[in-house]
């Protein structure tokens, strides 16, 4: 793949009945980096995410992925191109087992699965790969447990295993550590670091220590606009950012 940027947006704008949630955002995500999107509540981070994965349709502007205009594609098409997202609330399939959760993603390799006359055992060829992904996120002992019965931190780990099953070129993580305790945060952060090899990651994140440890580049959004951009040091020293987002206290 060529090109410095994996994902680029140009004047990306989303209006909801007169309210501008995202306004003229020009985002450039560099290949192979971890790029964080931060900003106070209501800054438009999640809206931005939903636009990028086409769960919302932009009012104006374009989105390019590897130079290809993807502004008019459907969410499922974006996923097939290699951009896979996670959700703010953990997105597992609650009443499927851990193994089944991961296999649903691996099954995508077959293309469409409309063959209702074949036994599900044809999917067993994916079990080995599924188990290795499950073990990568430390869930081996829970292989046959229903996802709904996993504690929160492990659900997120399962979600990451499922996402990785698609072997996406780009990951969009919406608040991967939201609602987690310290121990879980460290584990997920280590996991994100590990999976970032050969991949590009764009994440929305509130936890600033996670952001500062992981990300190569940070974009700060407020009121739907880009306020500042740069590495953690640059951004954290920007007086406007300190005022709008961090207060003055955060070190």
């Amino acid at each position, binding site marked *: 793949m060529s090109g410095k940027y994996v994902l680029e947006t140009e004047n990306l704008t989303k209006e909801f009945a007169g309210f501008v949630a995202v306004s003229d955002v020009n985002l450039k995500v560099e290949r192979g980096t971890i790029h964080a999107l931060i900003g106070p509540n209501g800054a438009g981070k999640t809206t931005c995410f939903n636009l990028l994965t086409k769960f919302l349709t932009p009012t104006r502007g374009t989105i390019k992925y590897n130079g290809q205009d993807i502004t008019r594609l459907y969410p499922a098409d974006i996923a097939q191109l290699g951009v896979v997202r996670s959700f703010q609330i953990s*997105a597992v399939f609650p009443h499927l087992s851990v193994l089944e959760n991961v296999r649903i993603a691996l099954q995508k390799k077959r293309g469409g699965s409309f063959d209702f006359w074949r036994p599900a055992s044809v999917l067993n060829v994916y079990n080995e790969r599924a188990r290795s992904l499950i073990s990568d996120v430390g869930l081996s002992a829970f292989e046959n447990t229903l996802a709904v019965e996993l*504690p929160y931190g492990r659900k997120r780990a399962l979600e990451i295993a499922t996402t990785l099953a*698609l072997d996406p070129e780009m990951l969009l993580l919406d608040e991967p550590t939201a609602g987690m305790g310290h121990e879980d945060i460290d584990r997920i952060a280590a996991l994100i670091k590990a999976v970032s090899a050969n991949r590009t990651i764009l994440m929305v994140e509130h936890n600033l220590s996670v952001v500062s440890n992981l990300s190569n580049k940070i974009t700060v959004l407020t009121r739907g606009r880009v306020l500042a951009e740069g590495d953690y040091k640059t951004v954290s020293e920007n007086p406007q950012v300190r005022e709008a987002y961090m207060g003055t206290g955060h070190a």
Partner: protein
Amino acid sequence: MEPAAIEQKDESAPAIRAGGVPVAFAIMLALIAAAPFVTYPLFVMQVLCFALFACAFNLLIGYVGLLSFGHALYFGWASYVCAHTAKVWGLPPELAILTGAAFACGCGIVAGSLAIRRQGIYFAMITLALAQMMYFFALQAKFTGGEDGIQGVPRGKMFGVLDLGNELVMYYVTAAIFLTGFLLIYRIIHSPFGEVLKAIRENEARAISLGYKTDRYKLMAFVLSATLAGVAGATKAIVLQQASLTDVNWPMSGEVVLIALLGGLGTLFGPVLGALIILAMQYKLSSFGEWVLVAQGAIFVLCVLLFRRGIVGEIANFFRIRL
């Protein structure tokens, strides 16, 4: 990748055990084989038709999470088409049933394409509205016989050899149709397609984000469900030798919800047991007239309040098995 190793302190509930389905299936098979010698074959045949109808309905609500409130359309109209083609066109029963099912399939494609564009209650309302449109058509059209329905449908000879006039032959043919439909549904649920359906039921947005075009899967499931409901309705027309407005009207759509709910949504055997209980109740309480409806209402309330998993669902949960 570096494994994020954690001590495994397993505090979760025990895993689901295998083996429930073959045992339950064997029991069901034995009961079906023996039933005509214990009770009226005609009653059991009706139960089997409703059981298949409810299983088809359950394929949608239980495994895709779509509540159709218009399944009487496919059940009732397949019944009309089957009755008409057998009586007026003189088709043999197997072709009449197939024609009825094909008609239900066509209706399923049209209604499904419209309904799957919406979610939840709106989906249910669209299916209901379309079913009611077709009910009024059945009421007005000439060939349906309006209030009288179609009476005196000949049973004929299946494949030219099986004389369905014989009650026992009719019974085992009905049982074979039911079992074929039941096993087909089992196959659908446990197929690569079925896995995607369950994923959609569990979390549609996530299924989309993994690259699945969920609308296409939902439509496919809808059409399969409508077709199987059609097979059930068409078979019933041959069994009872008539087709009537009752089967196409909205209370029938409600009844199938009740049957599936009582037995257990999302269980394989729930709709079968539900059909048996509801029909037995209607039969036993028929002398009390409208009180049957009161009893059904009470059961509905009890189900929702006390055992939401349904009878089979509660049993499966208790023994940690899948049924």
